[in-house]
């Protein structure tokens, strides 16, 4: 295993009386594709939202990305520039064309020229199959198309890590495949991916490692074969039984 790119130690997160994360310890290697599965409310989204500090976490918790501590302050924008994120609800900027959505961060954060940013954006939109819609606004695009634009937008920063927060959960069933296909292609490029998902087929096929979470803790982690074919924990078995056998 290569040196870890992301180190998480004793990550705790509470909402008032409710503890969302009970002291998570986790290392994610450079280039690893990690899928996080588990029932709703298990803390899996909270976990990845802590990695780029969209969620603040409790004192005593520690996360580093490429050696940079994740905490409020001047380093945070630097961490975020290296950590791309794709959301369940796409969150494209509705007042900008698709092309502008993808160009914005490279221009503002990487200080790239308009021309270079546009070239990169058009290349990426081509890769995710949205080049024809580049000059449209996001609203008329289908959910699947919007999510592919959101992936291109995240990729435009050339991040070391891509976080996916249930990227297909808001999509109509017939559009899930086109987004998963783009993600499968990405998994082969060496970018580190952390994917919170309910798509067990995708996790089995693409993940290097699968993490099963429940009740704000990691219950079990292993290769897809270990988790899906020979789960050790009762809770993992119950969950897989509920989602797979119907």
């Amino acid at each position: 295993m290569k040196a870890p790119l992301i180190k998480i130690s004793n990550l705790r997160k509470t909402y008032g009386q409710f503890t969302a994360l009970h002291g998570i310890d986790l290392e994610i290697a450079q280039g690893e594709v990690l899928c996080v599965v588990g029932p709703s409310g298990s803390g899996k989204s909270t976990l990845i939202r802590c990695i780029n500090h969209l969620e603040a976490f409790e004192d005593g918790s520690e996360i580093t990305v490429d050696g940079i501590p994740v905490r409020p302050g001047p380093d945070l924008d630097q961490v975020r520039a290296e950590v791309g994120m794709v959301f369940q609800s796409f969150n494209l900027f509705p007042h900008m064309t698709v092309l502008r959505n993808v160009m914005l961060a490279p221009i503002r954060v990487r200080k790239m020229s308009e021309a270079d940013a546009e070239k990169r954006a058009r290349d990426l939109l081509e890769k995710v199959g949205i080049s024809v819609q580049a000059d449209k606004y996001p609203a008329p695009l289908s959910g699947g198309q919007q999510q592919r634009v959101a992936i291109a937008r995240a990729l435009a920063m050339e991040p070391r890590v891509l976080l996916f927060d249930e990227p297909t959960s808001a999509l109509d069933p017939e559009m899930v495949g086109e987004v998963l296909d783009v993600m499968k292609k990405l998994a082969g490029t060496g970018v580190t991916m952390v994917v919170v998902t309910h798509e067990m087929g995708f996790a089995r096929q693409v993940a290097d490692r699968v993490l099963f979470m429940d009740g704000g803790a990691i219950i079990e982690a292993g290769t897809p074969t270990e988790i899906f074919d020979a789960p050790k924990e009762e809770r993992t078995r119950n969950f897989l039984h509920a989602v797979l056998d119907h």
Partner: protein
Amino acid sequence: MDLFSTFFNIPVLMQSLPQLMNGLLVTIGIGATSIIAGLIGGLFLAVLRLYAGPVVTALVRGYIDVFRSIPLLVLLIIVYYALPFVGVRLSPFFSAVTALTLVSAAYTAEIFRAGIEAIPKGQFEASAALGLSNRYIMTDVILPQAIRIVIPPLTNNCINVLKDTALASVVAMPDLLKQATQAQALAANPTPLIGAAVIYLILLLPMVRYVAHLEKRFSRGRS
């Protein structure tokens, strides 16, 4: 004397028209200056109120509450007649602009705040996740969307400011209303007042219609 020659006396109107037009320019000058200064001040206050620390936020909230509560006429008279006692002597024009701006900024701040708060959380998160600084999150992502939402209430506020400029006549500002009352006294005929009222209507009715149109459009859904 019949009603028509009392209230709609054409010769009197023609005679007072140049004076009314000068008044109109003054009214527009006070109104435009106060509207622009109020917009800038209001945006500034709104961002402070939302994102500054607790002390500044409390101060800004105090400012907004006070200036939304105080009657504009009272404020104007304090600025013009009371401030000279502490050595602050403002011309009628700046007294009017100061009072109008202080109040307009308070209302505008609340309008901008509501607009910013109406932007979905996902927009803040997506732009933060890209590494955009707070400044660019505001200028590139949030404000362009918020401004679309606040155009109808902001236009409403502009209408109010323009109407309230008439209060400047009490501090001897030669605005439209003041010119009309002087012309009325001179001609011993109320026609100039009617003329001023008509000019106010010509200025403001289109804006009122415009707001109604915008509100109808926005209520039909976005874009």
